[in-house]
């Protein structure tokens, strides 16, 4: 297997890299020290030049996001690291947080300096108990090594980082949902504008970045923006962690340069599908990304603009391989149940629309479907997306329904007309 350029996993294989001493031996926190000498604008400029884009799912250029923060020093600013990772098919942040907590902390120190923030929080989903323990231990070590707390590295800059444990809500992965959860209320996203960079946590300027985005910052500072641009494509530079899952020989997390062809990820690195299964479809970017049929998947390149041209999105990089034995109506049943269960219920189109779509798919699956259901599903999904709601969960719920029904219409029609499906053997009602 050709080895690919490593940015995040550069020091992954070193034993006990999670310990602070080992991490510092291998050049850990040097970049944080150097960043503190530089002016914040300079750090932001380097990150902007590197073209680093948000790895959580939206792909918003990180440098630009940092530049939105107002410069007046009087206002308290917050840096929030989004470790909620509840997008189905994604398990990349977990490895970074468990195996290399210090890399994330170093990235956060640099980011905090860039936006002049002295209090940062890492929001981790409640299920990741190992990541929480690893990060809390890492923060403690940093305090003893005077890397965190008051005037770190002997400079005037002081920074506190706290871990905040979530409690099982996919919506808290959304920027303002995370902020509402941090403020002690339920994870209801906030009406935008004002955007979080202007008025976020406690109505103060706050920046929310994904774990992977922050973990890439130290490498960029060390090797410079142009070195980072060498990897990946012009519009989406750098490398990205891809989580391959489904019935493939070796599923797992791989760090690949952006623009890497999906076909090679599945068949070369992933080792192809398990015994005598062949490819039916691929979900390229987590549950909310539009599905690709096998033919489309073979032509797709894994970068922001590559997925866009194929009509889907890179999203969080969770690549799920769908074998030919999988009935698409059953799969949509699972996905629509996920969005119905996770909708926060604040806006009407999403709260009622996701519930309705799931009920329709449920009745199609259990032979109660009506011929006009297919068109109704498309109408509903079309009428909850496109800025109709406060946050993007409605769009995320509408895209799978729209793409499954459009690209595998025949299966839905068979389920309704023939009231039978050779693939769907599972009978227990769920």
């Amino acid at each position, binding site marked *: 297997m050709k080895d690919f350029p490593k940015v995040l996993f550069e020091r992954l294989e070193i034993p006990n890299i999670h310990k602070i001493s080992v991490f510092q031996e291998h050049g850990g926190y040097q970049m944080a020290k150097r960043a503190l000498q530089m002016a914040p604008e300079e750090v932001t400029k380097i990150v902007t030049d590197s073209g680093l884009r948000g790895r959580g799912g939206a792909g918003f250029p990180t440098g630009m996001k940092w530049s939105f923060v107002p410069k007046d020093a009087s206002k308290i600013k917050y840096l929030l690291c989004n470790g909620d990772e*509840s997008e189905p*098919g994604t398990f990349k942040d977990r490895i970074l947080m468990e195996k290399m907590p210090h890399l994330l902390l170093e990235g956060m120190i640099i980011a905090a300096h860039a936006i002049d923030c002295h209090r940062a929080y890492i929001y981790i989903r*409640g299920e990741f108990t190992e990541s929480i323990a690893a990060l809390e231990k890492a923060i403690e070590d940093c305090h003893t090594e005077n890397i965190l707390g008051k005037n770190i590295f002997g400079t005037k800059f002081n920074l506190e980082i706290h871990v905040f444990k*979530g409690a*099982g809500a996919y919506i808290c992965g959304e920027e303002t949902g995370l902020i509402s959860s941090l*403020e*002690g209320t339920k994870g209801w996203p906030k009406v935008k504008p004002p955007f979080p960079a202007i008025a976020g946590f406690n109505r103060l300027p706050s920046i929310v970045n994904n774990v992977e985005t922050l973990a890439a910052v130290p490498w960029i500072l060390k090797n410079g923006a142009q070195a980072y641009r060498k990897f990946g494509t012009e519009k989406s530079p750098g490398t990205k962690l891809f*989580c391959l899952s489904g019935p493939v020989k070796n599923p797992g997390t791989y760090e690949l340069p952006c623009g890497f062809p999906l076909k090679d990820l599945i068949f070369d690195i992933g080792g192809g599908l398990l015994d005598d299964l062949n490819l039916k479809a691929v979900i390229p970017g987590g549950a909310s990304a539009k599905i690709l049929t096998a033919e489309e998947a073979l032509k797709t390149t894994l970068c922001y603009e590559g997925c866009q041209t194929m009509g889907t999105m890179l999203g969080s990089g969770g690549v799920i391989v769908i074998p030919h034995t999988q009935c698409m109506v059953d799969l949509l049943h*699972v*996905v629509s149940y996920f969005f119905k269960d996770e909708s926060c219920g604040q806006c009407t189109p999403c709260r009622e629309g996701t519930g309705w779509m799931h009920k329709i798919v449920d009745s199609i699956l259990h032979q109660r479907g009506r011929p006009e259901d297919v068109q109704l599903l498309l109408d509903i999904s079309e009428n909850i997306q496109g800025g109709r709601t406060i946050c993007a969960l409605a769009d995320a719920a509408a895209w799978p329904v729209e793409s499954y029904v459009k690209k595998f219409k025949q299966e839905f029609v068979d389920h309704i007309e023939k009231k039978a499906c050779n693939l769907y053997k599972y009978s227990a009602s769920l």
Partner: protein
Amino acid sequence: MKVSFSPKALKEFNSFEGLFDNPKSRLLPTLHLAQREFGHLSTEVIDYVAALLNLPSAKVMQVASFYTMLHKKSVGKYEVTICTNITCAMMKSRELLAHTLKKLNVKEKDMTQDKKFTIRREECLGACDKAPALRINDTYYYNVTPEKLDKILESLPS
């Protein structure tokens, strides 16, 4: 009956003080602490937490009822949450769930007679590469087959 934190829990609760500028942010950590302390968030616990943080009980219950990991009903000693999302569902995790429910002869989210287990489905647990995955209280189990799960459940001390 009146509930209250043990001294150790109270010490940990007071440690939340300095974490946040906005005191209301301590609600979620306090609810986690209360769940660890009392097993589940009964109405007395909600009132106690509300009094502790001087918040209206309605707002505390609103937050407690929003999150799936905070239990409003009593749960067994071991809470088995089986992921039934995309990849795990393709890897037969729903059959695993149905099998376990039938074997322990209990409905989803209810406790077994001996108050040892509560079985329920859960959304993606972030372990799709080792599907089907499940969690029992705080530990992950990967590539679980029905037989493997039965063995695990027996091996757990009651």
